[in-house]
């Protein structure tokens, strides 16, 4: 209603509104697009031109900006020829025989080395490039084909085959870890919510306060003693250890959401089932759990996202690379291969895409559940 009134009166206003909203969605969208685009490019191209689209043809240039050709010029003895060559401003080599009266730029380091006096003063735009093992300038044969940078899957191949950072194993670990954490949290939080909403018992208030208080403990404030206990129990560097800690960390939030939901379930169904002779467990498995499906979905999705993305606990409790879930692998890649931009972009894509897929598939549940949990809790 309100919206209709406003849009009819100010169509300029609504244009401005859409403009602002689209601008913000660009900030959330553009970074991923940039990374996705660059994940299909060779690192040298990411560094030199990260905005070109991956599927256009681009010529590879070396660090001096000269187009790289497959062949290198050879001298009369058939050796690769790196000196006595002039390049014009566009980076094209000028062969010795064509040089004629072309003189050197007296300011170039090479001519300074030889002494300015040996060169004619009539300057053209040419630069002498001697092969330099430090700079690595080469003299390419313009007759050979220029090297094109076409879209490459090389970064992905590297990400999936590099023995140090095995992404497939990372996926497996993440699914085992976050999957089991999610299932256990869903079950336990529903049981807690069932107990807290259906039973009267002494100390119930205190239990409730303890659950709320558990929301306040950040992982920092428990991690040192947890590390010691996990080590003593022989669970250091195991997925079970990480799972236990993550389950405990997610239970409080999940229970709060579930309590809100289970409390609203009609009591009559349970009473009727009881009259027909069903026990507490039949009621829990047959009525409470199935009826709580939507809330359980929310809790499950959030637990999964948090567990999948939680770097801190994984970093502290895992050491061997064979056990690292995908987030820890990502950090490993960034510290080992930080300069390989192509590989890093591919790794980011590989980590992000499953989460985005899950999110887009389930986004209705996520947003609904988020607001229910956050506004109540």
């Amino acid at each position, binding site marked *: 209603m309100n919206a209709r009134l406003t849009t009819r009166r100010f169509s300029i206003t609504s244009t401005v509104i859409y403009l602002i909203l689209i601008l913000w969605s660009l900030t959330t969208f553009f970074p991923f697009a940039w990374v996705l685009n660059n994940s299909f490019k060779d690192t040298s191209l*990411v560094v030199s031109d990260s905005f070109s689209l991956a599927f256009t043809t681009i010529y590879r240039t070396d660090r001096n900006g000269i187009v790289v050709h497959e062949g290198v010029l050879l001298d009369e003895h058939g050796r690769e020829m790196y000196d006595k060559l002039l390049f014009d401003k566009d980076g094209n080599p000028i062969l010795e025989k064509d040089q004629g009266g072309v003189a050197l730029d007296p300011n170039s380091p090479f001519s300074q080395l030889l002494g300015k006096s040996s060169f004619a003063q009539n300057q053209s735009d040419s630069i002498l490039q001697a092969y330099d093992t430090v700079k690595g300038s080469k003299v390419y044969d313009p007759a050979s084909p220029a090297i094109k940078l076409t879209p490459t899957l090389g970064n992905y191949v590297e990400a999936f085959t590099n023995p140090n950072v095995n992404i497939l194993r990372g996926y497996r670990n993440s699914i085992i870890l976050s999957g089991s954490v999610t299932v256990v949290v869903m079950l336990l939080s529903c049981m*807690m919510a069932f107990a807290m909403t259906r039973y009267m018992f002494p100390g119930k208030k205190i239990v409730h306060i303890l659950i709320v208080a558990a929301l306040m403990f950040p992982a920092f404030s428990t991690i040192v003693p947890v590390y010691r206990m996990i080590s003593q129990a022989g669970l250091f560097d195991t997925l079970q250890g990480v799972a236990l800690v993550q389950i405990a960390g997610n239970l409080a939030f999940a229970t709060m959401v579930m309590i809100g939901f289970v409390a609203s379930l009609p009591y009559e169904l349970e009473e009727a089932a009881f009259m027909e002779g069903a026990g507490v467990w039949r009621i829990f498995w047959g009525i409470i759990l199935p009826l709580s499906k939507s809330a359980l979905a929310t809790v499950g999705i959030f637990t999964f996202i948090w567990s999948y993305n939680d770097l801190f606990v994984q970093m502290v409790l895992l050491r061997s690379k064979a056990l690292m879930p995908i987030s820890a692998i990502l950090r490993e890649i960034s510290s080992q291969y930080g300069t390989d*931009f192509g590989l890093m972009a591919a790794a980011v894509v590989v980590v992000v895409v499953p989460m985005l897929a899950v999110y887009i598939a389930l986004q209705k549940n996520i947003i609904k559940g988020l607001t229910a949990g956050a506004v109540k809790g």
Partner: protein
Amino acid sequence: MLYRDKRPLLVLLVPSFALMVIFLYYPFVMNIYNSLFDIKGMIGRPEAFLGLQNYVTFFTRDPVAMTALKNSLMLMPLTVVFQVGTAIVLALLVDNIKRGQQFFRVVFFFPIVISATAIGLMFSLFYNYDGGMLNQILRMLGQEKVLWLSKQRAYTMVIIPVLWQYVGFYFVIVLTGLAAVPDEINESASIDGASGLQKVWYITLPMIKDVLITCTTLAITGAVKVFDLPAVIAKFGAPNGLTHFLGTYMHQQAFVAQNVDYGSAISIVIVVIGVVVAQGVGKALKPRRDLEGGQI
């Protein structure tokens, strides 16, 4: 009666509670205890009793700790202004449009689903001195390259992704709050000649005050817990510990420098600040809502 037999409670409550006692309450208390003793190494036993010495060191003798504290405290008002503020503006705008609400909801929420590690990596690709995205833009504009993570800029550059990532989270919460505001109130205000901004200020915002308090509290407590993004973008508070936050500094002290008791003390500081500020925000904002509730 159905729920008179209390025995099922053992099965329903005990496993969860055991987990929470073992992995939350007990370690939390142990952590306070540990912070009062000298502990050598990760699995060393508490030795000499230090009392509050770690806390004294933290507040008086450790310049990096002060930087970390200052950085974390500064982040709190910034999250409120930029995260909750931007979220309110975006939510008000989306609430006013007819088409595409769903689209903006989905897109604005993107960054929350992504791990902070991935976002951190992405932003390091933007900030990189050699061939980073920002310096490529500068080069296209014919400008000199800039060292984005220099001493002067590092803090700003590190908190930009921190602030940006969670806008969508508060956006969704505020938007749900807005959906609960009855249309009639806005319509009658329009008939009385209230302008758009007046309606927002005098009607909409007071009516979603509860939601705004929740968002503010979540934003501030979230600011104290920041870890992943700074840990990935600027490792170990680089440069010179200038980008340390309480969380990253705690991790460095406890797990890298093996200064376990000191790390524990820092983590207690984190909890205390979180609780005190959350309580303070609640107290500061709630009485005023009661008054206004009375007026309406």
